[in-house]
């Protein structure tokens, strides 16, 4: 197979099945809405119009896209290494809180770019801090990171609420929240738009992750760990350190996303502010087939879904939670699509013939987070 043949064999099939899964989810969701006595088409029109067509809505979509990109770029690192970081929400919150506190503390006394940097670093540290604990538990005690990261989410909710009601509280206002960063000191807009430059940070994050997996030893090693841990040990890779670092790195991205939202939009951290990007990021990264560059279109898609979903209650009498439901449906349909894809491969192999002299069918070892997923940078 020459280079060109190979390029074309990075087939579009995985993307097709993702898109089909999304379409199916919309169809099922629509049937659900109709059954529930709503006008599904109207609701969907609102959903798309708001996030895609309205100039205003498009701006919102792009604003939303920034944290989506950052969070999913981080999650991609973890998932490629088969590390199930479900604690993104917690890492995001702690990052946002620390960024809010640090940003507000130095705002006005240092030049803005420096303040942004300090806040971003604080956010990254916050996110990493929250990921270090499950990472250590995973590496040192062999604890399942799914459960520990989940638990850390709930701990984060409590810790952040406690801090924001106590030590970090802005005593000048009634509501429990951190001190506000003045509007003028927040992230500037991308020239000609009303979208803050966080979007560019998000795109950069994705590019960095793409390069990481395409061209670096570290990315290669993470892929090996993710696909076959035993082979990684056999090859002499520091498996624990790699997996742990992937989790911490993912936390860093989540924390950065928190800082981004504080610096770009919120200006402060409020108690009980939990945007719940974690599960959305999951759906996003999976539908993008763990492929870094595909994160960009899918992040755009999920962003306008969220933005559109926000306007559905008012204009279509459909609760916002419909979008969450839709995300779940997409993942469920995606699961079916993964299965169909596998069947398709089996059938096409039978037709084409396989380039081997293997007699017995062999299955790969154990379960893999990457099962059935096309991975190419």
């Amino acid at each position, binding site marked *: 197979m020459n280079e060109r043949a190979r390029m074309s064999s990075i087939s579009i099939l995985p993307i097709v099945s993702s898109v089909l899964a999304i379409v199916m989810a919309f169809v099922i969701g629509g049937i659900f809405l109709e059954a529930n006595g709503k006008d599904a088409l109207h609701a969907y029109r609102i959903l798309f119009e708001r996030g895609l067509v309205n100039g205003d809505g498009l701006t919102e979509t792009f604003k939303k896209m920034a944290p989506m990109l950052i969070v999913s770029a981080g999650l991609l690192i973890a998932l490629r290494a088969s590390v199930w970081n479900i604690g993104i929400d917690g890492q995001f919150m702690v990052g946002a809180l620390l960024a809010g506190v640090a940003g507000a503390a130095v705002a006005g006394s240092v030049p803005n770019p420096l303040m942004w940097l300090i806040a971003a670093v604080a956010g990254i540290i916050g996110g990493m801090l929250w990921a270090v604990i499950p990472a250590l538990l995973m590496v040192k005690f062999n604890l399942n990171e799914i459960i520990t990261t989940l638990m850390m989410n709930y701990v984060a909710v*409590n810790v952040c609420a406690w801090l924001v009601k106590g030590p970090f509280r802005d005593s000048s206002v009634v509501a429990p929240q951190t001190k506000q960063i003045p509007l003028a000191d927040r992230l500037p807009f991308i020239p000609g738009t009303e979208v803050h430059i966080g979007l560019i940070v998000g795109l950069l994050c994705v590019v960095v992750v793409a390069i990481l997996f395409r061209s670096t030893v570290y990315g290669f090693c993470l892929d090996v760990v993710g696909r076959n841990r035993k082979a990684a040990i056999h090859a002499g890779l520091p498996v624990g350190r790699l997996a742990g670092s992937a989790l911490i790195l993912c936390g860093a991205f989540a924390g950065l996303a928190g800082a981004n939202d504080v610096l770009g939009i919120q200006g402060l951290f409020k108690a009980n502010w939990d945007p719940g990007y974690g599960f959305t990021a999951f759906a996003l990264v999976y539908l993008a087939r763990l492929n870094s560059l595909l994160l960009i279109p899918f992040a755009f898609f999920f962003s306008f879904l969220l933005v559109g979903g926000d306007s559905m209650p008012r204009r279509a009498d459909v609760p916002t939670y419909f979008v969450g439901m839709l995300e779940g449906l997409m993942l*469920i349909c995606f699961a079916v699509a993964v299965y169909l894809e596998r069947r398709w491969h089996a059938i096409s192999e039978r037709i084409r013939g396989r380039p081997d002299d293997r007699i017995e069918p062999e299955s790969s070892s154990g379960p*893999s987070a990457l099962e059935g997923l096309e991975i190419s940078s």
Partner: protein
Amino acid sequence: MTINGIDLFDFLTAILATGLLRAVPLVLASLGDVFAQKAGLLNLGIEGMMLAGCFFGFYAAYHTESVPLGLLAGMAAGLALALLFAVLTVHLRVDQVLVGLAITIFAAGLTGYLFRDLFGGQNVSASVRPMTIRIPLLADIPIIGKALFDRQLLFYIAWLLVPIFAFVLNRTRFGLNVRAVGENPFAADAAGVNVIQVRYLAMSLAGIMAGFAGAFLAVADLKIFTIGMTVGQGFIALAITMIGGWSPWKIAFAAILFGMLNALGDSLQIIGVNVRTEFIGMFPYIGIMIAMIVLARRTSVPAALAVPYARGQR
């Protein structure tokens, strides 16, 4: 004996009573999850199944004002999601973690949507009266009497399920099949056990129990529904199953422990100790992690947990 003017006995009774009540949903969900995990299914959808149990149980109870119907509706909701999980993971052999998360996300969205749509987001409570049974004499024992023997019927039923589940797991053919399927599905298949069927049954049981747990929470205990009201209790139940070493007895013990941790905040406030609820609120979650660290090396996970089975592949 008094502290800050509060009777210590009252305090102990309160913490025991609340703790045992808080433990009920955990133990119910965990008991079902033992069968799922022992059969090789890592059910991250348990949180969603529990939440669905909460909502649909509450919805039925609100309209029928009947506890049994509420519970049935909750169990049916849990079962429906469990069957979805089983179809995707057992039949289509898709990654269990992915499917589990998908179901939890879906259920969170669905229940939120329906609650907003059907109740307009109003916090209404179901007017149900769970049957309370006071066991004479025993209920008069100090401290534990009121906590143990003056409770609603479901409370007794829940704890009675522990020995029943232990019996089914260890002493029945179905239990044996479940244990074999999660440990070595190939062996079970070769011995003539229908692996697919056993996994379906185990998952159904887990779903029903998760739905039961949710319905208990929303119908029999709190009598209200709030969006996302399970706050990770399903995941905690999943962890308790592991911490309890897949033994119903140990699971009951672990569940009580975490129920108590959960109740600590309430109880401390009763005796007037001023602690932030947020501070207390994270105890159970931290407790889970500590328990896992302590027990990490002693548990042996079912060998085929989260591994799909296809005949002819090893």
